[in-house]
């Protein structure tokens, strides 16, 4: 084939009205196979009383699983726990990440080393983190209690993860410790795009640190922070392994998030149908959060254009 005819063929493909469809086709096929079909299967399961032992045995029961969930106080508790956990994760990781990013954005000796060091918790596997923290927080031989005992700061009976009042806070603290490096690094990257001359101008005008941040830095990093908030929300709703390995949803349901509840129903008490119904609720929540995010983002963009 001559280079001329090859070029003509490429030009024809480029001009084809099918090109955009061809380009998105692999992505669409991937989503259909790995997201769409499982989602449809989950919807189907949620209206059945299918058991883990007979997943192919389908018995339609309508909305019975959903009405059972509505009568189940444990389900409402898991929604409440999820809401607290997600809010805590988003506020904690972004707050701490922003603070760390602002610190790392300043000039100081060993900055590169600190930037590399801070990413370690994010890079560590959640399973290892959960096991290490279980050891550290153990009531009998944990290093945390050994350190706090002389200071008189040990919790009642030395319990952290087995204390209904402290378990969720402890799980949240561990989650934030693991995730904040990610938000810090992303915000730090965003901080690099804040124009230096604007900062200098603000300083010359006598703006304090807060005024500089509010008027110069924040408008630049706000879209990044908003995107991080969305990602953290969805990831926190879905988080399983860290919570399961730390507390298995206990004690007394104090860390029983929707995903833990789903696993318990599906794989501990073998009710796949009921678990699928919990999954549908979780998905609905995630979709609502995403819609809310895009609505807010669109409004902000429109407001920006009108300025």
């Amino acid at each position: 084939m001559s280079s001329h005819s090859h070029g003509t063929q490429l030009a024809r493909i480029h001009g084809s009205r099918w090109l955009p469809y061809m380009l998105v086709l692999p992505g669409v096929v991937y989503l259909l196979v790995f997201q769409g079909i499982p989602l449809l299967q989950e919807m189907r399961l949620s209206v059945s009383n299918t058991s883990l032992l007979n997943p192919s045995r389908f018995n339609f029961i309508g909305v019975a699983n959903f009405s059972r969930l509505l009568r189940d106080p444990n389900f409402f508790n898991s929604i409440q726990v999820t809401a607290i956990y997600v809010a805590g994760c988003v506020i904690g990781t972004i707050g701490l990440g922003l603070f760390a990013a602002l610190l790392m954005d300043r000039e100081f000796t060993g900055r590169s080393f600190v930037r590399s060091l801070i990413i370690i918790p994010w890079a560590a596997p959640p399973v290892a983190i959960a096991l290490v923290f279980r050891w550290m927080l153990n009531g009998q031989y944990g290093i945390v209690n050994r350190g706090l005992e002389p200071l008189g700061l040990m919790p009642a009976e030395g319990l952290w993860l087995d204390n209904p009042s402290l378990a969720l806070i402890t799980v949240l603290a561990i989650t934030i410790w693991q995730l904040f490096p990610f938000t810090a690094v992303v915000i730090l990257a965003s901080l690099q795009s804040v124009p230096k001359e604007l900062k200098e101008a603000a300083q010359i005008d006598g703006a304090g640190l807060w005024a500089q941040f509010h008027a110069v830095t924040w408008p630049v990093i706000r879209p990044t922070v908003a995107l991080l908030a969305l990602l953290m929300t969805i990831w926190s709703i879905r988080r399983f392994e860290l919570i399961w390995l730390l507390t298995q949803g206990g004690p007394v349901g104090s860390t029983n998030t929707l995903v833990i509840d789903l696993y318990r129903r599906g794989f501990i008490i073998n009710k796949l149908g009921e678990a699928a119904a919990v999954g549908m609720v979780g998905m609905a929540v995630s979709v609502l959060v995403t819609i809310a995010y895009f609505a807010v983002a669109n409004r902000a963009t429109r407001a920006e254009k009108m300025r």
Partner: protein
Amino acid sequence: MIDRRNLMAGVAALALLGSVAAAAAEPAEISFAASMLGEPLRGPLLTALVEEFNQSQDAVHVTPVTTPFSSFGTTMFTQMGGGGGPDVIAFDQPNIYAAAEAGLLVSLDEVVDGVTLLPGNNSLIVDGVQYGVALDISNYALIYNPTLVTKVPTTFDELVAEAKAQTKDGVYGFAFRHTQAEEAGVWYDLSNYVYGNGGHWAVDGNPTINSAETIAGVTAYKTLYDANVIPKGADAATYRRMFAEGKIAMMIDNGGIPTVLKGTNPDAAIAAAPAPLPTKAIGQVMAALAINGNSKSPDAAKAFMKWFLTPETQAKVQGFLGGSTAATPIARTKEELEKAPYIEVFDSLGDVALPFMPQGLEAETPQVRNIVVEAVMRVLAGQTDVAAAMNEAQSQVEALR
């Protein structure tokens, strides 16, 4: 001249003969899953026993598969639900009921025909069909450190008093599982107090979670929890290690545990006595062998099971189970009893020991267990009293039916 059709038929016949010959030469491959295979002491011995079977004949080859106890049931059920799973599975007793009810197990009536089984195996008969045989049966009793406990308690009040007296200088008087993370273990330990107070979780399929006897059992469990005599927050692995190190004076545990304790510390001081509770009834835990209904070689699996139940094999199994018993009656040797005299205590409880399942609701054990343990966790946390929690649990279990 050979025509094309005859040639093809000849080739097909040769291929068939070849595969038959290959089948005759190759042993049937089956897998055997048990959490015991992963235990530090008994695991290698059970693996060696499986290898002994492989060496003893050419028709069947068994591959051992290890899965941890904590995720064993979930792993097996997920695989079986997907149409797969190991051929022979050592299930936790309640899982036999759930699997049998789902039609996922092979009848063992042919395997146990002519074999004298211990009475505990009767609990593995579902709707008149034997779906499992015991790998090990362990009765629960009071295990104590005789260098610490000189006067063995015979009543619950004496137990609490002795536990309080022993709790000093880094030693705890007692230990049991008490956290949500060990739900199955809490269920076992709690059940001992319920059975020992004459209670049950259900009778003939009717929940009896709020009966006076069951409430008395849960109250006894809470009394010990509140007495500040246990290492709170310590899981079973931790407090058993502490016992082996002389830091726990007493615990109610099963007959397989002394072997575990000796594995941690060969010099650990161990003695046993019946649990000091109002009645003699106590819990019994069992790992039971079953054949997966998805097995592609059920006959090979049955051959392995038949070999497992022969007196010679059972004697070897009994030899490494410690205070637990095998599926069939095997007399203890003099050496065994001299080495571990506490074994007699565990053996003596076979007639009064009860499985950790609500009678008549065996297949619903995971659901009932979850409801009861969550209720008890609320009691331990001081969020409600025993009677109110058990009334609530009773209502929830009744709603399951």
